[in-house]
């Protein structure tokens, strides 16, 4: 696990060596800030529901952009060969990269704490759902990171990795809004697959083991698939 932490530090640091990190964070804050405050004074309610409603959709675009380079770039440059022939296991590499992605999502969420703080100055804010929203945001972010890393391991082209990751995340986000396309028998299963459902449960301030299990399963499936892909490449 010590190796995974070295890899985590390196990957996390690498985000801030290139302008990508700053662009992604700026874009994220711009989009969420705009959509949140545009309707805020019309609704005239002291809560962050609008912000959290939007979060899964924004994440499904932003997170694949964060994770797309994690494997694709290394495979393209060839540095993966150097990395994996040092005394590290496949698991170390996957976990290190995953932690770097999740840490980046956390860093990205920190500036948005200004929203609840400013809202609490304007009215009586219920902090329960806000806490839930941020915990859910991190869980959702972790799940999408795992999916993004899986997409990144598939190809050495970062744009393809981004498109593939975004497609999967977008489907998981939007599937509960397309339920009328599906036969009635499948609705239960598809409803369960929808990331948005689980996220909104937590964002209401209810932390249910089913929702936790859902996000942890997505993380596991994403990272395990990555492992299988990298084994297949040998």
């Amino acid at each position: 696990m010590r190796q995974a932490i070295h890899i985590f530090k390196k990957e996390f640091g690498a985000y801030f060596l290139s302008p990508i990190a700053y662009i992604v964070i700026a874009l994220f804050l711009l989009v969420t800030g705009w959509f949140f405050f545009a309707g805020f004074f019309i609704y005239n309610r002291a809560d962050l529901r609008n912000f959290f409603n939007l979060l899964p959709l924004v994440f499904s675009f932003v997170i694949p952009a964060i994770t797309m380079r994690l494997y694709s770039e290394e495979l393209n440059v060839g540095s993966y060969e150097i990395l994996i022939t040092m005394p590290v296991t496949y698991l170390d590499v996957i976990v290190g990269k995953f932690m770097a992605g999740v840490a980046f999502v956390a860093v990205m969420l920190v500036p948005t704490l200004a929203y609840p703080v400013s809202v609490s100055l304007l009215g009586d804010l219920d902090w329960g759902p806000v806490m839930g929203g941020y915990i859910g945001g991190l869980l959702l972010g972790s799940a999408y990171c795992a999916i993004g890393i899986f997409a990144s391991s598939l190809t050495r082209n970062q744009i393809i990795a981004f498109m593939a990751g975004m497609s999967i995340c977008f489907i998981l986000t939007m599937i509960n809004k397309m339920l009328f396309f599906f036969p009635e028998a499948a609705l239960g299963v598809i409803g369960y697959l929808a990331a948005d459902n689980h996220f909104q449960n937590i964002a209401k301030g209810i932390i249910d083991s089913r929702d936790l299990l859902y996000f942890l399963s997505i993380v596991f499936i994403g990272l395990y698939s990555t492992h299988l892909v990298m084994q297949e490449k040998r």
Partner: protein
Amino acid sequence: MIQVENLTKYYGDFCAVDQISFDIHRGEILGLLGPNGAGKTTTLRMLTGYISPTAGDVRVKNYSIDENLLEIKKLIGYLPESAPLYHDMLVYDYLDYVARIRGIAKENKSARIRHLADMCGLNEIMHNVIDELSKGLKQRVGLAHAIMNDPEILILDEPTSGLDPNQIVEIREIIKKIGKEKTVVLSTHILSEVEATCDRIIIIDKGKIVADDSTEAIKQSEGDENFISVSLLNAEFKNVEDALNGIDGIIKIDQIDNGDEGVLTVKLTSRSSLDPRGDIYRRIKETDWVLVEFHRESRTL
């Protein structure tokens, strides 16, 4: 030190390495020689565990590559072809990262990095971004990476390809210095390269071992024939053939080029036991041809 048994690798239907077996002994500098696409890189990648063999086994110091990959990785320092390093890091940061992954203790780390910087000549570029380095400098950083933890085995894939002659000499010196105590395996497609650095040569072609012997032995068996290239002005090929044919040791005369500005180039094949260059020169001197180029061709694969 390293035992390779019936190592085979298929990429789909294409057989890149076909049942090769050899042993590498401690303290040897082994050259893997072969044309492009012979399977050199694939063989080295299997030795390092980067790709897994379709069949066969690699054993390093009684560790099997299937079961104890991590232990083997600790013993091997590896530099892939053209040193694919993280291009956006500073040289110092990169070496520091490698040192931490290689498990160098904190208190020895900066001393070790300084030592490697001296050895590989990196002192001036420690705070440059890797992307901005020339190919030769990158190769040296890669070499420093490979010997970070003083590994018992060093595997280098085409360590001098794409470098200018000065850099080649420098890299060779470093490899020789390391090779005094370590087992070194390197690949190349240039014969003079292995002659200059290696104790032993394995020649592979189309995934099979063609020859495996000490450098001296290979030199003798390979060197049955030498090639001499002569370029002449004012000469006809037929006359040249007549004039040079009688010289002792010359087996064959071929016309290579009757190219620009009347320069005729011929390739002479000679027995290596005799050096006919003196006789050739004397014969040419007797005529009114103008000798513009005269050299022995370096033998490469």
